């Protein structure tokens, strides 16, 4: 078997395991529930609130839930199998350890895609139910002056921003899962792996508070871009005098790609050199 065939076979094995368990279903339900609840309970804080602001807020909440799920899925991907003893059952077969790492990374990416698709679908439905995802307009409130509403953002432009945010979010979710995978390669037990994952996550997310890191530093060390893009969609949806930051998507994708590549490369190095005693 060549490398593609081997990885393809292992992806099939990993898919069989994921689909046979309840973890992914729980994750999908949790993401759908968090997104739907946020869309439903989102309290407008200004008269300019629109379906777009509701959609952006709901998607942001759903992505947060997806990120937590993928962090757990990533950190337990190998540590969980080591702890359960299944790794010693599967590794002796005629595959390279690097094949396993790549297959696990691909399955995590597929789970990230499924979770993102769920969050986007539910958030979009939430927005449509809240009045429809149409043009963002502003009507003059001057007494006695009846002017046609002014279109600030077309529905097509807003949809484009949302799609762009979804792509960057997918990259950020995959990155989180792959950083989790790297952590998973370092431990033989689930609790230390998940704890390390959450500590790292907390450190990145709270770097501003904990270490006084400024926005520039934060943007350089972690994929904040999906959040920033959704904030921008909210602002545009409120018809505020804001513009779309064109550079966000590219920078977000570049940072995610860099961190993800480093995480997978280190996972390959660590996992292929480890002795498995348990």
């Amino acid at each position, binding site marked *: 078997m060549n490398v593609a065939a081997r990885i393809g076979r292992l992806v099939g094995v990993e898919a069989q395991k994921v689909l046979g368990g309840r973890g992914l279903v729980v994750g999908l339900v949790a993401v759908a529930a968090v997104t739907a609840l946020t869309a439903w309970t989102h309290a407008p804080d200004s008269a300019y609130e629109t379906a777009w602001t509701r959609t952006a807020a709901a998607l942001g909440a759903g992505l947060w839930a997806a990120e937590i799920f993928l962090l757990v899925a990533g950190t337990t991907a190998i540590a969980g199998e080591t702890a359960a*003893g299944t790794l010693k059952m599967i590794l002796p077969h005629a595959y390279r350890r690097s094949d396993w790492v790549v297959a696990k990374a691909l399955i995590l990416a597929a789970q990230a895609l499924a979770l993102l698709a769920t969050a986007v679908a539910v958030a979009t439905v939430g927005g449509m139910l809240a009045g429809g995802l149409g043009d963002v307009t502003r009507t003059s409130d001057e007494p006695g002056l009846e002017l046609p509403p002014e279109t600030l953002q077309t529905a097509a432009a807003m949809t484009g921003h949302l799609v762009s945010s979804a792509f960057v979010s997918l990259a950020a979710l995959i990155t989180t899962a792959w950083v989790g995978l790297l952590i998973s390669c370092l431990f033989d037990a689930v609790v230390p792996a998940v704890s390390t994952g959450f500590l790292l996550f907390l450190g990145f997310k709270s770097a501003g508070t904990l270490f006084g890191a400024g926005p520039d530093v934060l943007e350089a060390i972690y994929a904040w871009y999906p959040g920033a893009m959704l904030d921008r969609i909210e602002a545009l949806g409120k018809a505020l005098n804001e513009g779309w930051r064109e550079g966000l998507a590219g920078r977000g994708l570049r940072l995610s790609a860099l961190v993800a590549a480093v995480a997978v490369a280190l996972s390959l190095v660590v996992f292929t050199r480890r002795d498995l005693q348990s």
Partner: protein
Amino acid sequence: MATAVLEVRGLTKRYGAVHALAGIDLTVEKGSIYGFIGPNGAGKTTTIRIVAGLVRATAGDVLLHGVDLRKDRLAAAKGLRTLVEVPAFYGNLSGQANLDIFARLACADRADVARLLQRVRLTHAKDRPVRGYSLGMRQRLGIAQALLGRPDLVVLDEPMNGLDPAGMHEMRELIREENREHGVTFFLSSHLLDDIQRLCDRIGVLHRGKLVAEGRIEDLLSSAVTGFRLRCAQPTAALAVVAGALPEARARLDGDGTIHVAGDASILPRLHRALLDAQHPVVEMYPVRASLEAYFLDLTEGVMG
């Protein structure tokens, strides 16, 4: 000439200052059942983990069908199946789903899954989640996964663990059948010396990381003569002669009318001369060999596995 399926050359594993394996050499021939015995901590599981590719050797080579495991793992491990210690499965999946996963890994077809489920008597439980299986059922499922896809070499670490006497009998039969009918070579470690003696053609005895004996069981035991049993026309009178001439041989008369004397071949000239001089010629004589257990205890300084 027999072909070697597994060759271990100078295998060494160090954990810091501890030498888990101190340069062991062994050969497992195609179609054989090789028993790997040794006290706890002797290095059996470490050896198996290295062969399985779970642990890297500090030095030495493992060749499977002549292919170096370290240099070309994909080719070397093709026909290799292992079961290291207690078998583990995906508990939320059924026995059948678990075997399907391992069949996919081993490129085995689904018919093989059904055949092996039936062979290890788990067809009735195949749709139940494995987390509800007893240790014996898991052990049987573990053996089934190790036999998927007609492997060349199956490495089993304590395969009888958790099995009741009927299960152990069945397991022995399964191993014999796969060996005899399908030519599967087995390399198995066990604490059950009786099983090893009944099943294996050759054994290797590991002690403190060193292989202290290796070979065919009969050959090893034939060199471990503990005494002789002899028959004379007048056993009581002959016993008195032997007891007088060789007091260190602790001669005794057993219920079947034979005289048992302890000692190795060096006592034979004096024994024969004493009996001939006393007009009690030996009618029949055969050596008494050590049991595998006695042989094992002797080699390992009384440390039982």
